[in-house]
């Protein structure tokens, strides 16, 4: 089967002043549809860079990224925006909800963007936020905000659900709840979920684990029988 995502010799360099930082160095990997993937590595390993490139938020220096056979590294700004709009759901470490919109409106806003959005209320109910729809982000706990953020990402029924340290600002109990929610999205609804984290304990729960260090992939493991997030020993 043709993989959903294929990174081919992807390199990303940041130039600050006279200093060149190779954040991603000749990266190659594949991810299949419906997989629950975890990208692991210490901070500064280039995990977020890979995720940003995948999400169309940043451009490669060289190499190509094929999504469903289309090379997004050749897209112009407009097509990249369309790609983000139609295919990518993003979950941030700091949620980035729009403070002036309510929970419901934050999710419904994304729905206004795409042609066939999922129902915002149903999704909020499915992430356990059905009771808080008319609250504002500032009235919610971090875990609750992250659930809204996930609901917002799911709402457009994206091809990819990208999560950058989704539990980074949460306590471990809440973190487990969020991660199992994400795993459920993948197992039950067939979403392709990619999580960037530095917590290697999550590895046994993933279908695929990509290990990174200093901008390079050091190991890639396919896990034939992943366990549930709740069963992992934190």
């Amino acid at each position, binding site marked *: 089967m043709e993989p959903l995502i294929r990174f081919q010799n992807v390199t990303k360099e940041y130039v600050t002043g006279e200093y060149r930082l190779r954040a991603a160095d000749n990266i190659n990997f594949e991810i299949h549809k419906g997989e629950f993937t975890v990208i692991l590595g210490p901070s500064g390993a280039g995990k977020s860079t890979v995720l*940003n490139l995948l*999400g169309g*938020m*940043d451009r490669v220096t060289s190499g190509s990224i094929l999504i469903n056979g289309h090379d997004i590294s050749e897209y112009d*700004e*407009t097509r990249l*925006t*369309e790609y*983000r*709009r*139609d295919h*990518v759901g*993003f979950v*941030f*470490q*700091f949620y*980035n*909800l*729009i*403070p*002036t*919109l*309510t929970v419901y*409106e934050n999710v*419904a*806003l*994304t729905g*206004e*963007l*795409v042609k066939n959005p999922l129902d915002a209320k149903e999704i909020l109910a499915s992430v356990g936020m059905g009771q808080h729809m*008319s609250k*504002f*982000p*500032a*009235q919610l706990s971090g875990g609750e905000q992250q659930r809204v953020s996930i609901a*917002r990402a799911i709402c*457009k029924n994206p091809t990819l659900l990208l999560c950058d340290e989704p539990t980074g600002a949460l306590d471990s109990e809440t973190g487990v709840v969020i991660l199992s929610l994400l795993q459920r999205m993948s197992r039950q609804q067939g979403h392709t979920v990619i999580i960037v984290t530095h917590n290697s304990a999550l590895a046994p729960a993933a279908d695929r684990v990509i290990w990174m260090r200093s901008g390079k992939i050091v190991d890639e493991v396919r896990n034939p029988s992943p366990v549930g997030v709740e069963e992992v020993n934190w």
Partner: protein
Amino acid sequence: MLFKKMLRDMRQNLSQFIAIFLMSVLGVAVFAGINAEWNGMKYERDRYYEENRLPDLWLMGEDFSEADLTKVFEISGVEATSRRFIADAVMTSGKKPVLRIHIVENNEISKPHPVAGQPLDLSKDGIWLDCFFAEAHGIGVGDVIQAEIGGITVEKKVLGLIMHPEYIYCARDESQLFPQPENFGFAFMPRKALHHALPLPYNQLLIRLDSGADEKKVRTELENLLEGDYSLLLTHETHISTSMMDMEIRQNKAMGNVFPIVFFIIAALAMLTTMVRMTGNQRIQIGTLKAMGFSRRKILFHYVSYGVWIGLAGGLLGLLIGPLIVPPILFEMQRTIYYLPAWYAVLTPEAFTVVTIAVLCCGASSYFACRRELKDVPAACMRPKPPGTGRHTRLEKRAVWYKLGFSAQWNIRDILRSRVRSAMAVTGVAGCMTLLLCALGIQDTINGLGTWMYQDLHIYEYKINLKEDIQSDEIYALEQRYSGQLIQESAVEFRKDAKEKAGFLTVAEPGDQLRFQDPDQNPIDLPDSGVAMSYKMAELLDIKVGEEFKWRMSGDTKWYESRVTAIYRSPAGQGITMTKDTFEALSETMEPSAMLISGNGSDAVEMPGVKDVKSKEEMRAGLEKTLDSMQMLVGILILAAVILGSVVLYNLGALSFTERIRELATMRVLGFFPKQIRSLLSKQNIWLTVAGILIGIPCGYALITYMVSTLSDSIDMMAKVGSGTLILCITGTLVLSMSVSLMMSRRVGSIDMVSSLKAVE
């Protein structure tokens, strides 16, 4: 060290601090400039009055005797007295301009100011001529001029050109709105130059008081001593030149106090928003400083000093450039109306106080901005700030809310969340609109005045002014030839309770050359019984229809009591109007002073008994001249409007952009096109601009009304702005706002999503 931090912070927020700086420069410059202008005028006027020994009181009468002079001189408080003969002569050349001749007894008080040729010398035979009149007619020293006075023609050599403190505002009477040196001027002559040809009664008595003398007491004593011997008493408040000059200075003072307020409000608001944002961003730094052991007071002092330095620097620069730039521009205008020997700016301590106000405005707003951040304990300061709260608005409970769509919801909440910023935007736009409307509207208003006066009210094309001694057969001949409407115009005094005012009486024969309008500008006819009073005079005397008042002709001792039966609006020459029948019912005889005709009357100058002939075009020309002289003021106002609008909007745009960059970056990641985000932002901008314009329109009207109301007691002007001008102002403000917002929204495309969404710093 903290001073260095301040300078670097300012460099990082350069555009905001420049905006605040500019506003305090403008505020102080406008105030100090106008202050220096009117103080300069006041200083020069006082000096001029003093140097040429301007009288404090003028008495008009038939013939003041030597004995009268002695009696007056003995009143305590009187410093000097002098008599003179005044009469209007008509030049025989050209358009027959009027020259007011002064024949003086001595040159002790009310002395002319020499400009060219020799100074006034009473032992010589010749004439000293008004230098502006001379310039308008191309007359120089040594030329011989010919004028007709009291039926005889006099030919005199011009020995000198002069200015005079009684003619700083040189108008023939109150009905003339602006000086027209081509039509009217004055001249001084020694007695010996004329006294063989004419009887020269001293019909004016000048009194100069000791400084500190009680003018009221002197006036009462005068009335007792000379009861009936004089017809009119003028003081500085009623003399046309001194009162106009006073008014002008007062008006400039008022203007100089009003305009800077706008700039100071903007400076304070800009300071507030900038400092709120900056201290918000520097929470961690503030926490660190606290943790290091800086006292709360010291940190507060540090942030307040931003405002103080900016206000001080801006204020001092404003103080420097205002008096250098503003007065010359305003003097350019003043020169066409007021004739002073010299024009210069005078800086007063008041101008320095206003720098303090600028410093206070900026300092206080930075104090309020950072006080909040300083409340928290250091540990709390070092944690990122919780996100701003959205709030439910009442509007949301209505069904309509759900139909608004995301962008409207977002914008409404965003405006409510950042009230200060929105209020500032609305204020800035409103200020811009007000100034623009005032600048362009004031021209419309003066143009409207011309149309109103010369088309709606004065139907006649020519006004033939008659000589005082015109014979009835000469009037008959004129009536035969031009079939015009005869009117009598006289100066009168009004009295109502304790109020006294000088004004005009117009007696009109039946005819349709003059039309009247009620206060709401509906046409009315002159009432058959009782008198009609002009709206402004009725306001000044506080008289309503049906009430009675007293009046007398200047030069008469008999007071009449009349009832006001109608009120009409009149742009110039405030007073009363009545029909010939009503007038003669008072057992007065109408003595026509002018004939109004609708045909061409330019050849009437040749007819016997005619003093001069004025066409409508000539009268309108005076207005045009004023309009020309206002171009500069209009230019300044437009410039101020544009600076105000663009600085405020640009500053706010930059501010809200940095405040919301995280939100905007999130939207970009979600897949919004830059175009969509731009339209979202510009929608809010349009709302605020429209709100500002809506507030600015009435403010503009109020400002025009205020400015024209301070012009003169004798002018009744209504703010009138053409729909074209209004649309132009609205469009101008919108275009300005749009282009600033366009400039701002370009940045949306260049948001770096990755770095904007990194962890909170």
